């Protein structure tokens, strides 16, 4: 009996000791590396110029490295492989083979982004020109290595401490796209030690493309500089420690060994070794301790994209926290701006350090910042999820991290549905993005169908395609849109260069509201043959200064072709233009005539009395049509931001647009100016009244006999009422059967705009009278891009 009591006491003590011991050291870690060098002949991933050919030589081995980290709450495998990308086929195969020690949703797969390791693991023919022919044997070999690394790392696990630190480098990387552009100088380091302070693993985070292998060695297998980083740091650390390289926000970052004129493999090796030495220096200052782990993953829907046929609609985002260190994992190649902004926000949220890791779990190509949107940078052209992708990531990671929301951050502002009184203009107000979104949401049906009608369908039928003959060579059974649409957006995006951010925000908001990619709204704004262009039939005329209204009047007629079927019939697109009264958060209030699903305008007046009307008079060709789309955006911009005629004229670049377009700019107390674009472009004052042919002034029936009326007659003096009446006399009582007609009379002196927009085949509608001034009731809430991303 006594012996039993003793045994019980001993057992209790042992259990207590075990519990205390477990409580004292919950963190465990283990690491391993496995060689996954493919056989010669394996396709390599990363360069289209390689033509998909197989490897011909091996310079250094390809490895996959696994780090197991676990405490009482969290277990993760962090994997870093000497590969270009983690594509979906590889991810799926790895998870099939992965050991069950750690939940599969806690396996973080990353690639160092070397361009000289095996490809051939992407099945889709859309990407084989870069990744090479699809080889299941290579996929199996590689995935098997991942699995073995995880098994071995788990088997090697032991009680451990972990610490982190950062250092700065000024001579290892540069911005490869913009001279003196932003770069990430941070080198981040995680040190994992056993309880004897011997290193188990070291993780380095550094942002630069591993593309240092020269083109002459393009068919040679190599891990690039990360391979030599691994080799050197492991040599410095000893104890058979395993090094992992996590590439940072390296989309536009290159290696740059400033001042060292190195060639060939020497450049590759030196880069890796220099980085290792920097990392080793940082390691010396790291105090490893027991830090809590936190890991969270989400599978989330991505913003809409024109490349939806070849890219996924959702992806995985991971956040790993080790004490006060935050790691954010991107499923592709973020440009450095995204990483820097995310870090700034993380530090503001109280994290001690933040690492961005690229090429994690998925490969969605590049993620470019908003400011690249109108450029032709390669990173932008390969960035498929819209200009707001940086905000989107910021918001998504913000939700995943433990210190996610900043003070003041909350739910996005909910905008009410856009409504108006009968006969009144549509009221818009607030930030441009919110206004666009409100409009896109209200007219989503039309926007989506307009995109289908004037962009997607012509592309499918090859009436519209990017530059190059290849699109016409494709056999008839091929639908080129999966590639042609994104390429066309790449071609036309620079047309937006130089426009105010408010205009781009409006396009982005309109697209978001309509459920379209931003590129779709862009293409719709610029597409040839779209309705709503001034080339559809526009004319303007003026009675400056000498009219009954002291400041002169501007009359404008604008016609838009009406589709054969309407929304009411269950199909088609509404092309009826409408009047919008806009009170933007920034700039002047204005009224404009525009189609509901376009950002640009053909005619409008702002609160300063600045009037702009557009006209296209040249041959109807694609160049003019695209240029006119841009001009409509410029017109919208100058309505919002011009306080005077002079300021408005300064925004119109004569040389930048082709011949065949004119703008008319008037303002109170100024002679109206006609701006003709193209090489022979000029700005000419319009000193006298001009009425277009067919317009009659005076009571009906007398006009035709009045020798002073119409046919370009000059020197007329009209009241606004007479001018309105004259506009209707151009047609026989009703709008043509196939066109909607917009009649507008601007009275800049009184800031009044009269509009009569008559649907095709209808009798003239009544004139609406719009006083152009700020409307404080136009909006109560504002919605910005950043808010919406959140």
């Amino acid at each position, binding site marked *: 009996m006594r012996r039993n009591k003793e045994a019980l006491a001993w057992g209790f003590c042992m259990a207590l000791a075990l519990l205390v011991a477990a409580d004292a050291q919950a963190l465990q870690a283990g690491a391993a590396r496995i060689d996954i060098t493919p056989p010669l002949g394996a396709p390599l991933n990363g360069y289209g*110029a390689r033509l998909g050919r197989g490897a011909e030589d091996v310079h250094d081995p390809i490895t996959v490295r696994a780090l197991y980290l676990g405490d009482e709450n969290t277990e993760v495998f962090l994997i870093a492989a000497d590969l270009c990308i983690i594509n979906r086929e590889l991810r799926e195969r790895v998870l099939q083979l992965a050991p069950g020690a750690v939940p599969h949703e806690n396996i973080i797969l990353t690639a160092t982004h070397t361009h000289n390791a095996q490809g051939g693991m992407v099945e889709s*023919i859309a990407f084989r020109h870069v990744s090479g022919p699809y080889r299941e044997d290579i996929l199996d070999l590689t995935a098997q290595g991942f699995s073995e690394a995880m098994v071995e790392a788990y088997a090697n696990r032991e009680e451990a401490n972990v610490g982190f630190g950062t250092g700065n480098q000024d001579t290892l990387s540069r911005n490869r796209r913009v001279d003196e552009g932003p770069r990430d100088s941070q080198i981040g380091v995680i040190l994992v030690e056993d309880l004897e302070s011997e290193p188990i693993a070291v993780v380095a985070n550094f942002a630069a493309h591993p593309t240092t292998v020269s083109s002459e060695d393009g068919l040679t297998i190599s891990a690039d500089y990360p391979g030599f980083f691994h080799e050197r740091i492991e040599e410095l650390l000893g104890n058979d420690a395993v090094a992992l390289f996590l590439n940072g926000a390296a989309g536009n970052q290159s290696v740059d060994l400033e001042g060292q004129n190195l060639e060939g493999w020497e450049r590759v090796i030196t880069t890796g070794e220099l980085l290792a030495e920097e990392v080793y220096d940082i390691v010396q200052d790291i105090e490893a301790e027991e830090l809590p782990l936190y890991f969270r993953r989400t599978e989330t829907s991505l913003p809409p994209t024109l490349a939806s046929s070849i890219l996924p609609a959702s992806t995985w985002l991971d956040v790993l926290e080790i004490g006060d260190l935050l790691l954010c994992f991107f499923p592709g190649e973020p440009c450095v701006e995204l990483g820097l902004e995310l870090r700034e926000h993380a530090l503001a949220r109280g994290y001690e350090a933040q690492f961005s890791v690229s090429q994690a779990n998925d490969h969605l190509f590049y993620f470019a910042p908003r400011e690249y949107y109108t450029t032709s940078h390669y990173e932008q052209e390969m960035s498929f999820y819209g200009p707001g992708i940086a905000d989107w990531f910021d918001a998504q990671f913000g939700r995943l991290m433990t210190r996610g929301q900043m003070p003041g951050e909350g739910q996005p502002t909910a905008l009410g549905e856009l409504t108006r009184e009968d006969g009144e203009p549509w009221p818009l107000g607030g930030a441009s993005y919110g206004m666009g979104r409100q409009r896109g949401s209200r007219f989503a049906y039309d926007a989506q169908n307009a995109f289908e009608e004037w962009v997607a369908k012509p592309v499918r039928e090859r009436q519209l395609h990017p530059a190059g003959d290849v699109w016409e060579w494709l056999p008839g059974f091929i639908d080129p849109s999966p590639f042609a649409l994104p390429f066309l957006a790449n071609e036309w995006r620079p047309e937006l260069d130089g426009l105010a951010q408010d205009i781009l925000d409006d396009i982005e908001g309109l697209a978001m509201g309509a459920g379209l990619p931003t590129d779709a709204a862009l293409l719709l704004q610029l597409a040839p043959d779209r309705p709503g262009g001034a080339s559809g039939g526009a004319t303007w005329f003026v009675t400056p200064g000498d009219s009954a209204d002291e400041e002169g009047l501007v009359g404008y007629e604008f016609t838009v072709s009406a589709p054969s079927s309407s929304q009411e019939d269950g199909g088609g697109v509404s092309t009826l233009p409408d009047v919008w009264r806009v009170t933007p958060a920034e700039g002047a209030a204005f009224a404009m005539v525009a189609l509901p699903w376009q950002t640009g305008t053909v005619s409008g007046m702002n609160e300063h009395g600045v009037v702009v009307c557009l006209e296209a008079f040249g041959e109807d060709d694609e160049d003019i049509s695209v240029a006119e789309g841009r001009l409509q955006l410029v017109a919208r911009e100058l309505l919002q931001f011009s306080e005077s005629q002079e300021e408005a004229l300064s925004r119109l670049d004569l040389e930048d647009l082709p011949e065949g377009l004119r703008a008319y700019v008037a303002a109170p107390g100024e002679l109206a100016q006609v701006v003709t674009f193209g090489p022979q472009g000029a700005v000419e004052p319009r000193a006298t009244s001009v009425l277009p042919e067919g317009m009659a002034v005076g009571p009906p029936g007398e006009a035709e006999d009045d020798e002073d009326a119409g046919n370009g007659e000059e020197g007329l003096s009209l009241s606004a009422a007479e001018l309105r009446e004259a506009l209707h006399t151009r047609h026989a009582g009703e709008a043509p059967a196939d066109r909607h007609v917009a009649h507008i009379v601007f009275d800049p002196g009184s800031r009044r705009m009269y509009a009569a927009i008559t649907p095709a085949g209808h009798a003239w509608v009544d004139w609406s009278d719009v006083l152009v001034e700020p409307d404080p009731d136009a909006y109560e809430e504002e919605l910005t891009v950043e808010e919406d991303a959140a």
Partner: protein
Amino acid sequence: MSETLRSFPSKGGLKKNKRRFGPHQPAWFRNALILIVAGLIVHAIWVSRDTTPLHSVLPAQQKYGVFVSEVLPQRERLAASFVWDAIPGAGETVRDLLAQEPPVPPWILHNILGGLGYAAGNDLESFDDVLFVTRMSHIGALLERYSRLGPWTESDHAGGLRLRRLPGEDLHYAVRGRTLVVSPSRDRLIQALTLRPAEAMTPERFGATVEGSGVEDAGGVIHFDDTDAWGGVLRSASFALRLEPDQADLKGEFVLASEVSGEWDLVLSGLAPRPLPPPAEGMVQLSANFGKPLGVLLADVGTVLEWPALAEADWTAWPELEESLELLREAQDDDGENGDDPAHPPVGLMLTKTLGALGPGFSLSVTDFDPHEIVPMPELTFQGESAGDLARAQFERFPREPEGASLAQSYGRETEDGAIVYLPAIGGPSIEPSFAVAARGMAAASNRHALRRALEQNANETRPPQGNLYVRIQPEPLTEAISETLMQICKIDALKGYTIESLEDAAEDWMTRARRVESATMLAGQNDAALVVEISLRGRPAQEQP
């Protein structure tokens, strides 16, 4: 002399007669009845005598004349043909028509439509003026005659021509002797019945047209003129078709329109059937011999089709090796200067210089298919005959990779045994144009592994029959390859008209049909002024399908 009593049993016939005619019917009645029956038989034979030959109601000048042989008696054999399973849509309809029970007893149809049928007319678009003639049996003729007593047909006096028509149907007919003449056009029928002998087809010509009947299931000739859709291409086409459950043979003879034959004179002049080289075994096999070197042939084709890339290419053989290298360098530089992607090798130059001097006999086969290449890629094997040491010289002069060549340039490389020179091009190991010296000339393939296999097979192959062009297709692997390629295109939404699901359904249907055909073979040759084409389909019994 003895007298024996003999007993004669009564005869059943008497009893029968007694039963049939009664004991009291007199002999004259019986005799009269026999006479009536005999008279009826004589009348039947008389009215169904064959007084009107088929050709006498067929106009001499017809755009088409087509015979069908005993379709009704043979319909079970025809319905069993694998061909109907292989032809989408219409094939199943025809098979069902052949297989279904007719609305009238078969013996009636056999007696009316059971023999040779002949259709002729001039309208090749609507066939509204088709005239169909056949010879009925005696019984068929009588059935038709007595059917007039019922409501099934209506009389049409037609000025004494005694036409008949089917009520509610746009179908008119007349009977002359045992000859049945049918047409949807009443005017056409009247015209046929009132033909003067000089306007009718001669017996000799009719005999020649239906010469194959009895052996072939169908045959005939079609003449085209400028008003017809095919008139711009063909002057006439004649054909003969025979269907068996596991074999279908179609022989056609085409006379090209003078414009086309003039246009293609450069290629076709002096053409006659020639020995064809054996193509390598594969899902598609082509063998051709146009009597002139391949380069000349392709240049001629390029001239006719106005394709400068073919017509103006320099098809002369490679010069000596150093000059070949220089030629290649110049071409690669030109590509860069012209703004083209310099990474692409001048494949055109490689092909023109290597293949142009070969021929006249050459063969091309699709031996396999790699769906996983950088683009889905058929495996091609080519063999070109050449005289003397030309192939060896070509092989030796093919430019090999010089020192310092960049990745973007393509030069030949030798395999370890030196037997094959291959050209790393775009993609992986399935796209490496390869060349070797073969028994009868030069062999080439889309990759070196295919070429090696082709060289090993070379000795075992048999030549096709003489002709100018021979093509053999194995539909099953070919359909599988095409379906796989389309599926890959479909997966990126780039295939018009299909989703992945609808393509899967369609591909399953294609494969089902393709499996019914083991092979399709075509042999074409120019014979005098006519192009003779023989097509043979070999079926696979349904139970052998995987």
